[in-house]
């Protein structure tokens, strides 16, 4: 009856969101008076989950699962649910997890609520708060099915250490060829750079930058901050930047600690996708730009003057605070 949490890893290392979802699962388990079991696939350092409230880790080591495969991963999680008799499953909001969670839901006839931003408001009835209308609102949603899946919104609950320890058990799911009927042929992924999904800081630029040749300073600013780079929709439509950088209602959602918007006007569709970021900074020549109404800090000024100054200042700051 333990709460089952899927703790995601990449190349053997837990992702940041693994500790957040583990902490969330612990909060749910405390409400239900039970413990937390994690299912981890090809991760090392499984015992590190103990500090976040996990009592037991089901550790899967399987070479066929080295590359993410939604169906096979979903089936693995489903088998762990069955073994543990779990009725509550906690997952993240990463792209991979949003791929597999509906498959788990379909298989287990479970109610799945993604984009959840707080610990359950009650467990009988089971009630969670989630974002809706692309961050323009919140819904309080009751889950009435026997098995419940909660998708925790990125960076909404945080990771909380409580000094516990976890035991690690091997878990071998039984998988067949049918689980691999969708095959990965090639992965094209930036390495060693923060991604929009995981980064603490996102530096984003819009049409105000005039052309793709001016992105050097945006990349430099991102480098200094260890940030991911993003852009507004027209910038990716114009081919100035890759589609994967498009953020907003129809692009990727951003829920970073710090979002810096440069030469972005702040259209409603853009704001909808980035408003869950904790601190928002805007740099724009136009004091009337709508983004100033949604931001915490702003500079009315020309990006071509302000951004190079900001890079220099941050380099100084980093040197002092290193």
């Amino acid at each position: 009856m333990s709460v089952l949490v899927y703790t995601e890893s990449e190349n053997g290392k837990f992702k940041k969101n693994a500790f957040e979802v583990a902490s969330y699962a612990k909060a749910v388990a405390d409400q239900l008076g039970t413990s937390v079991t994690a299912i981890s696939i090809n991760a090392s350092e499984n015992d590190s989950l103990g500090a976040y409230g996990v009592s037991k880790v089901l550790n899967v080591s399987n070479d066929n699962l080295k590359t993410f495969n939604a169906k096979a991963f979903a089936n693995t999680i489903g088998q762990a649910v069955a073994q543990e008799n779990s009725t509550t499953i906690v997952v993240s909001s990463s792209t991979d997890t949003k791929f597999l969670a509906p498959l788990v839901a379909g298989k287990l006839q479970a109610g799945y609520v993604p984009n959840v931003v707080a610990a359950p408001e009650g467990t009988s009835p089971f009630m969670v708060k989630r974002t809706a209308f692309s961050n323009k609102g919140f819904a309080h949603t009751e889950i009435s099915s026997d098995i419940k899946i909660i998708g925790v919104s990125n960076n909404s609950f945080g990771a909380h250490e409580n000094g516990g320890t976890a035991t690690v058990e091997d878990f071998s799911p039984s998988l067949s060829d049918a689980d691999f009927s969708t095959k990965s042929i090639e992965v094209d992924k930036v390495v060693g750079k923060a991604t929009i999904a995981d980064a603490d800081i996102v530096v984003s630029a819009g049409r105000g930058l005039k052309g793709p040749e001016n992105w050097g300073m945006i990349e430099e600013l991102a480098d200094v901050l260890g940030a991911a780079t993003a852009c507004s929709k027209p910038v990716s439509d114009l081919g100035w930047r890759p589609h994967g950088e498009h953020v907003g209602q129809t692009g990727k959602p951003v829920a970073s600690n710090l979002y810096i918007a440069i030469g972005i006007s702040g259209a409603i569709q853009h704001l909808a996708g980035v408003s869950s970021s904790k601190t928002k900074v805007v740099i724009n020549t136009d004091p009337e730009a709508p983004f100033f109404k949604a931001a915490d800090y702003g500079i009315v000024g020309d990006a071509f003057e302000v951004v190079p100054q900001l890079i220099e200042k941050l380099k100084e700051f980093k040197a002092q605070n290193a």
Partner: protein
Amino acid sequence: MKILVCISNVPDTTSKINFTDGDTKFDPNGVQFVINPNDEFGLTRAMWFKEKQGATVHVANVGGPSTEPTIRKALAIGADEAIRVNAEPTDGFFVAQQLAEVVKNGEYDLVIAGRESIDYNGGMVPGILATLLDMNFVNTCISLEVDGSNATAMREIDGGKEKISTNLPLVIGGQKGLVEESDLRIPNMRGIMMARKKALNVVEPVDAVKATQDTKFEKPAAKGAVKLVDNVNDLVNLLHNEAKAI
């Protein structure tokens, strides 16, 4: 190839969102409804399969009679036929069960849905649908080619993209990239006239369970005023000492 495009009827992206009935319902007053943007990219890709590979394209929507203008728009863009399952789409699991019935009855080879609807952002209908039908599934799909029963897709991942090989029957959760923004079609007069004559079949829902229920809505708390500064020194100080963001 027989394609079903699943269409969600959603508030236009510029809509201000309001709630009514003691904040228990979305208020559609004064809201313009459109084809969910992620579905529109998929529908446009389906038009390509129709024109280049002779596919038949149907669209399906689970919704009340008020969604018909949106369905007619999909017909005006070029879909051949439409099905409306006459039920309120209040739960993703319920909607997927309804669409599963449509897919079974229509014997579709390819189901194109959107990665998520921009209203309730559930993002679960295509995946649950694929599981119920035991069809292959690719989410956040940004390109799709079909050759016989082989399909090659590209999907967006955090920090890049992944090429995938699979087979029909297939469900995808699509988004921008399936076609470009500039490929989207605005229905012309001829399309609109023809759409009036195309079949829009209304079917009653099958018995299905609901797994979730939205009980109350709220709007985000109002934001405090922006702090304007006129130099980067002040900005860095505030970000470090006040916001603790760097």
